[in-house]
């Protein structure tokens, strides 16, 4: 099915339309803006989520109950659909949203107009918040899954050799969780780079995230827009492929360091 999808994609683009759709991108500054915008969203949300997940997992690593509580919390957020998270953050962060009411109640802001624009702003704060809210738990779960009893046994073994808490984190926990972290970050990046819902609901009209742009073009009534939409799909796919390649290289290097082959 995947191959069919890919193949038909190449068909729809390559034959008859040549590369004019791609050429169009080169002359269109909006395309560059969209690409950068999407890259920014994906990179930022992945980095922040990963940092948050690592910090939390590192903080509760020692206690079994802490890990259990964290896992339950992470699972609960994992169960929430992205679209719903985006809608909920919309209700929370909009000019007349709950946070804005809170700041007004405390006396920090005077009205909806005074509240910093988080939704539908060129700086995609609400989109990023939604993603971090959803993806930090995801990475946490991936990390907890890799944080096996074997890893914890190694930590206590190394303890008897004189390694304190921070050193255990640096010399045992991090290196052993690195493959899982790489994988989680890749999945996270691929998702946030290609997802439509959150930027469509919470993003600005200019610049538009790449997937939003692609969907708009695809639905456009003008016939010329269709190949452009498909070309955008290819661009999105290629960026993800590049990132996947980088992640594969990193994890191969991590693996090689472990087997020495």
């Amino acid at each position, binding site marked *: 099915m995947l191959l069919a999808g890919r193949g038909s994609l190449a068909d729809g683009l390559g034959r008859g339309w040549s590369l004019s759709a791609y050429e169009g991108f080169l002359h269109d500054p909006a395309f560059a803006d969209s690409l950068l915008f999407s890259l920014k969203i994906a990179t930022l949300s992945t980095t922040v989520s990963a940092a948050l997940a690592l910090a939390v997992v590192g903080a509760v690593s020692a206690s079994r109950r802490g890990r259990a509580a964290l896992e339950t919390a992470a699972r609960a957020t994992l169960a929430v659909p992205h679209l719903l998270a985006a809608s909920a953050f919309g209700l929370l962060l909009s000019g007349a949203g709950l946070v804005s009411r809170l700041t007004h109640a405390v006396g920090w802001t005077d009205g909806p107009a005074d509240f910093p624009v988080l939704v539908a702003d060129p700086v995609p704060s609400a989109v990023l918040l939604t993603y971090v809210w959803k993806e930090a738990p995801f990475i946490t779960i991936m990390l907890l899954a890799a944080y096996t009893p074997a890893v914890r*046994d*190694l930590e*206590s*073994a*190394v*303890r*008897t*050799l*004189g*390694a*304190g808490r921070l*050193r255990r984190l640096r*010399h*045992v926990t991090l*290196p*052993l969780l690195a493959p899982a972290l790489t994988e989680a970050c890749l999945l996270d990046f691929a998702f946030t780079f290609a997802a439509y819902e959150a930027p469509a609901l919470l993003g600005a009209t200019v610049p538009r995230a790449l997937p939003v742009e692609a969907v708009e073009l695809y639905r456009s009534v003008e016939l010329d827009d269709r190949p452009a939409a498909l070309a955008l799909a290819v661009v999105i796919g290629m960026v993800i492929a590049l990132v996947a390649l980088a992640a594969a290289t990193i994890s191969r290097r*991590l693996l090689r*360091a*472990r*087997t*020495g082959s």
Partner: protein
Amino acid sequence: MTSSSSAPVPGLSLKRITVTYPGHREPVLDGLDLDVADGRLLALLGPSGCGKTTTVQVASGLLTPSRGAVHLGGTDVTRIPPEHRGVAVVFQQPMLLPHRTVLDNVAFPARMRGRSRRDARTAALAQLERVGLDALAARYPRQLSGGQAQRVALARALAAEPAVLLLDEPFSALDPSLRHTMRDLLTTVQRELAVTTVLVTHDQTEAAAVADSVALLDQGRLLQQAQPADLYARPASLAVARFLGCPTALPGHVTPQGRFACLLGELDLPDTVAHRGPGHLVIRPEAVQVGTGPDTVAAVVHSARPEGAFTALVADTAAGPVHVLLPPGTSPALSEHLRLRLPVAHRWVVPDRHSPAGPPSINGVAGPGPAAC
């Protein structure tokens, strides 16, 4: 003998250690006292589930005891975390860092003490030479065999320059022939460095082969601590005798003249038996012989089964069953009448628990006191 002030300070000393896991009523360790003489190798022997591993956890600091104290060279270290305690552990699994080479694994403890990478590696190479693996320094743990990995783990533990070295069943995952070489390596290295060492094992031959003294643990209590030969020749209780493969126990009592009175009559005892009063006569199956003459006792074969080249025989005497290990060649039939010689030098009497307490024997027969040897 009675005061400890004159005695040298033990390298490792566990005092009244009690550990109860949450959710369990019975303690895993129940007021355990254990002294390991400085620079000596003690084998901690016992059946699985007796609390051996918990003892290692407590000594290393990975587990804080519910009650009791851990002393290293006379200092109380109960509250000192494992990373600052100077007690290195070799576990049943090698526990090498998979992402580090053999050399960097062994260099790890020195790095933790803040030494430069170069110094640490130089020192690590010396440790690897000691265990004969310097040629494998550049390999990764996955490329090692089980025995090699465990040798690297030993080198790494030694590189920590520990005050006490703990080995928690380090050879039990290895095959028998490899186990022997590892034992030899351990004794050589231990004698050379004179580091206070505790070897946890469930294998009595291993304990007897390497240890200066053996502590026998059961259900969280110390049954007896003695030199290996003494442990076999002079068990403190029937439980010890039975664990060490000596099931024969004939009830009776030791007369004031130092003879053993039982249903077989009065039997001579060696001078080493200081106990007087009720007790059980124990004698190892290997020591009993089939023979004739005035110093033999009558017996009827109850069961006989081959044990390797030997025959394990149980013969009923007037005082109770006697276990015999017969050399190859002889194999009596069931219900056959024969006579058994119980050589005087191999006889030993285990006092009954509630016997009127005589003066405690030199070998620390009663209770968990440290053996005076």
